[in-house]
């Protein structure tokens, strides 16, 4: 129940991300035959439409959160930026979990040399701060949303791998696994039917934290100008742009900053609710 209630924040962000093309567009929802607007979209502005006559408008009735240095509507860009953040977060999270669970389960179940090799890779990837590794890789690859999200996923799988490995290692000698092995089950069956169903829940419980970290890395990357390339609106890039016009248009800073903070807090809150203990403050060994 706690988990359901605490997932509301995340669901709101996901809904905004999904509906953003409908929520913010200059084309109205309903027109009559004569082309007159019957029902305008809630935020009647395109995120990318440049209008230099309306640069640096303060928040008001025409633009609820004002406009930026190109006359683009801050709210429309904020709403559309949700797609980048939530999308990159989810994609990176999925890649990280898929990678982490597969490698962790293999390491724990197979053992021996394969386990040592996988742990060695975990150790190496963890020797770099995620942002540094992703930024360095971004230097060698063309900038795009997909590249950024995949890179973040490829650096974020190590914690899930450790958790799943520990669980799979414990299960390797469990009676029901031994029985299955004795009756001739192949390794793939052991993995899929017996080990994964038990090893998965603790890994899934880390998903919200992985999501939060991925969202942060994505916006940090966009803030450095290395993430999703320009025309698309992302919160990180909006913050970098806002930094350049801090004195002329201070209203551009708060919306993306608060949205980013709220999304990360919502993810953490959901994660905290999934943990078995009421609130483990410090995961110190």
């Amino acid at each position, binding site marked *: 129940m706690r988990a359901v209630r605490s997932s509301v924040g995340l669901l709101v962000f996901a809904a905004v991300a999904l509906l953003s093309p409908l929520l913010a567009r200059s084309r109205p929802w309903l027109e009559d035959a004569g082309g007159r607007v019957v029902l305008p979209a809630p935020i009647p502005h395109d995120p990318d439409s440049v209008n230099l006559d309306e640069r640096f408008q303060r928040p008001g009735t025409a633009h609820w959160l004002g406009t930026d240095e190109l006359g683009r509507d801050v709210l429309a860009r904020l709403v559309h930026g949700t797609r980048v953040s939530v999308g990159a977060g989810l994609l990176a999270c999925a890649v990280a979990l898929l990678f982490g669970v597969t490698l962790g389960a293999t390491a724990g179940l197979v053992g021996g040399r394969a386990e040592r090799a996988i742990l060695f890779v975990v150790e*190496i990837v*963890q020797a*770099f701060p995620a942002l540094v590794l992703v930024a360095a890789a971004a230097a060698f690859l063309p900038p795009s949303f997909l590249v950024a999200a995949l890179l973040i996923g490829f650096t974020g799988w190590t914690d899930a791998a450790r958790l799943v490995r520990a669980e799979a290692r414990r299960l390797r000698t469990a009676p029901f696994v031994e029985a299955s092995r004795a009756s001739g089950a192949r390794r793939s069956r052991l993995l899929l039917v017996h080990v994964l169903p038990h090893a998965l829940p603790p890994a899934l419980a880390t998903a919200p934290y992985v999501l939060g970290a991925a969202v942060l890395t994505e916006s940090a990357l966009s803030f450095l100008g290395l993430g999703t390339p320009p025309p698309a609106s992302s919160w990180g890039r909006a913050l970098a742009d806002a930094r350049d016009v801090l004195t002329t248009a201070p209203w551009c800073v708060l919306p993306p900053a608060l949205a980013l903070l709220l999304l990360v807090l919502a993810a953490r809150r959901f994660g905290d609710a999934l943990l078995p203990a009421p609130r483990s403050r410090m995961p110190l060994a």
Partner: protein
Amino acid sequence: MPRYALRRLAASLLTLFGVVTLVFVLMELAPGDPAAAARAATGRAVSPEAVAAFRRLYGLDRPLPVRYAAWLSRAATLDFGRSFLDGRPVTRRLAESLPPTLALNGLALLAALLVAVPSGVAAARRPGGRFDRVSGFVFDLLFATPAFVAGLLLLLVFSARLRWTPLFSDPSRGVAGWVLPVATLALASTALIARVVRSCVVAALGDPAALAARARGERGAAAVRRALRRSAGPFAALGASLVPSLAAGSVLVERLFGWPGAGRLLADAVFSRDVPVVAGLTLATGLLVVAAGTCADLLSAFIDPRTCEEPPRLSTAAEVR
């Protein structure tokens, strides 16, 4: 203990080897041709002869195993070649950018310790009390706030609105010129340190040894001092885990405030696809993190020899995050 130290050092050397290899793999990932990238960076058309000369200069015409061997031997001597942008040795550019970054990180760490240790101890004196709950909430919030968001909010208030501080860091303005970047970088570390200090002191105060000391009449500051001393092992791991977060924070903070250090160098080099500089800086970061983890493990083995009895674990630092 000496055997443990040797084993731990050997494990670290192996990890370092992996780190060097990973950076090599990253460099090989580059699609197309670094020569073309250099052409894009300088913005001029380059003749085929110049490209060939460039490829020879950087050894790109040799086969993969040869390049890998060359990379290993250069990495061992910390020679990363010359920057694509200005042709100066990467090592020199790195050395130039380090002092400002070290100053920034040192000041931030000092500020974080000055705030975090007293408030962590104060929170641990009465777990669940009002101060504990309020400071726990504040530190949770700070911990989740990314450095560039916190820095922008500080800039908004102190530079754009109050005009107490310049918009970019400026050492000639005295304290006002550097206080914002230092504070921004310190925020996340403060939260982490305060949380670890709190939970360590709570655990140490609840220890039977603490109870015995209490029975002997030990109170207040003396009890806290002893609790802090008993938590030295976890603190070493904490120190190692601060290194990656400070490194990532430096990249963002230096970019945000125009601080002329290694973090900004990395961001700029990535932006201009200056492959040797990116490789050198990435490798240096990896070396630093591995070295910090090794030092922390050796230190906690020295403080508490019981840790030697376990087989050398991968790294303690990863568990604090």
